């Protein structure tokens, strides 16, 4: 009988500081195959567990990009290279890159929403021939809040990148404006067949999907990723349930035809 609640130790190999409250922890990992959009319960005994998405997947390594917001995440930020964290997972369905192959793909991410979808962006950046076209629209509050800044220059080589901030003082490398403002400007050959992934805070996802639908995207071609309170990640604790859906099992990635019916 397998005990899914017992976490395993994982060593911090590297800490990448994006902003003062957002770091990527590069952790050792050996286990089941992991997909972008899946998550782990990351924990420190005494402080508790927190569901965190994988933001990068490579041989023997998983990245977790964590925002320091409370009990568990504050304590994680006290840890450094060589220290260990407890993990259990992977949980959730994650993104299936096959859903987007041979299509024009638009990824729209707000803030930390970029981390669950980063694996998908990486995949098509490495395999640009597998999509008909790719655009990444990433929005952050201010230039100081930008995550994965060094990735953007690399991604730019293989895809259209729109990096935008809500407001900025200087005219830095990015544009100014909410991600939604860039939807009408998307250059797509066939909007009816194009596919989109939208990840970010609830309001951002709401207005972005509305914007995409208005431009002619089909509902079944849009995917979103949801966050809810989660205590177990494995369909037991009930906290993440919406209607007959368990976000931890059936999500957190949902096709919009399903995602739009999730009324808390």
């Amino acid at each position, binding site marked *: *009988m*397998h*005990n*899914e*609640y*017992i*976490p395993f*130790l994982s060593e911090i190999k590297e800490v990448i500081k994006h902003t003062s409250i957002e770091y990527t922890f590069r952790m050792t990992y050996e286990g089941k195959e992991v997909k972008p959009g899946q998550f782990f319960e990351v*924990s420190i*005994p*005494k*402080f*508790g*567990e927190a569901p965190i998405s994988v933001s990068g997947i490579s041989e023997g390594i998983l990245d977790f990009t964590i925002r320091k*917001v*409370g009990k568990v*995440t504050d304590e994680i930020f006290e840890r450094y290279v060589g220290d*260990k964290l*407890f993990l259990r997972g992977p949980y959730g369905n994650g993104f299936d890159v096959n859903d987007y192959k041979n299509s024009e793909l638009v990824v729209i991410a707000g803030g930390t929403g970029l981390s669950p979808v980063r694996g998908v962006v990486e995949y098509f950046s490495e395999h640009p021939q597998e999509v008909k076209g790719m655009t990444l629209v990433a929005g952050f509050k201010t230039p100081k809040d930008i995550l994965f800044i060094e990735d953007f220059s690399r991604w730019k080589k293989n895809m259209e990148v729109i990096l935008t901030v809500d407001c900025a003082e200087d005219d830095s490398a990015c544009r100014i404006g909410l991600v939604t403002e860039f939807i009408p400007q998307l250059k797509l050959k066939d909007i009816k067949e194009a596919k989109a992934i939208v990840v970010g805070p609830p309001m951002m996802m709401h207005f972005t999907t509305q914007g995409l639908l208005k431009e002619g995207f089909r509902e079944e071609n849009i995917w979103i990723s949801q*966050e*809810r*309170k989660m*205590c*177990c990640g*494995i*369909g*037991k*604790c*009930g*906290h993440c*349930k919406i*209607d*007959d859906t*368990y976000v*931890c*099992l059936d999500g957190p990635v949902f096709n919009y035809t399903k995602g739009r*019916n999730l*009324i*808390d």
Partner: protein
Amino acid sequence: MGYNLEKASMNDIFKTWSEEYAIYAPKCLVGKGAFSDTDSVRYSEIQDIEEIEFDKKSDFSFKEILTPISQTLFYFTEEEIKEAEVPKKGAIIFLRSCDLHAVKRLDEIYLKNGFEDYYYKRIREKVKFILMGCAYSYENCFCVSMGTNQIDSYDAAIEPYKKGYRIDNKLPAWEEVFSEHCEKELEVTPSYVTENIVKVNVPEGITLDIVKSEMWNEYDSRCINCGRCNFVCPTCTCFTMQDVFYTDNGKVGERRRVAASCMVDGYTDVAGGGAYRKKNGQRMRFKVLHKVYDYKKRFGYHMCVGCGRCDDVCPEYISFSNCINKLEGAMAEVKKNA
């Protein structure tokens, strides 16, 4: 096989069982009721068959034996984890038909629904169920409407009969002990009720539009989100994780899970102050639809078993069964306004 047994013989059997099992049954606790001067019937471990309360409904269900209110998952030091031990003995649980139907709901969540729950399974594997027949219906019960008034999947069934008991046994391993101790062997069919005073009608064709109904608003102020309705419900399974450490040695502690309620503040809280269903009426909606609508969409049968305990316990006299009976009107209302 059915048997007639005397009290003394039953207690002899209890002695044999107690080597392998702890025996749990509803027991009357005088003066411990939800309202003043009332008694409370709760599950406890018993040694003597006369401790069992056969004439009243239990205020709390058996579920805490399978899913303890607070359950230690493991003990930890900073880098080491030690799994909590399993109770050595198995359990024999005396319970009524509605509650045995509820076991199926607990199994559905804990043994299926994505992953198997290690801690539930290791207790569940060693549990035997003895059905207590219902000669009559109790206050607020609506098992007949929910189709949970009768059940065959017990290990044994029991009913007081004259000065002793009647037993129907289905467990081959118990045949010997019963036939050794019985007065006589006979056919026994456990009694069950065929009618309750309270009846509910779960309408067909509920849609999510029902969320928009006005009916939920009534509970915004009536319900005080105390969560008692969830804690007494034999089918509620939610929990929250909790890390605790022992103060005399800050490095050592344990991770537990504790019973949670979707009616109580904090259930949906996420970091940064976000929360869903802030109004109590919306929590009521979430609970009611789970019990008689969305659970069925996922698993094929209703979650609520009609035990009526939530109605019995509510300090605000909110009736869940009444609420179910308003669903049909609520659907009509939202269709009209659509």
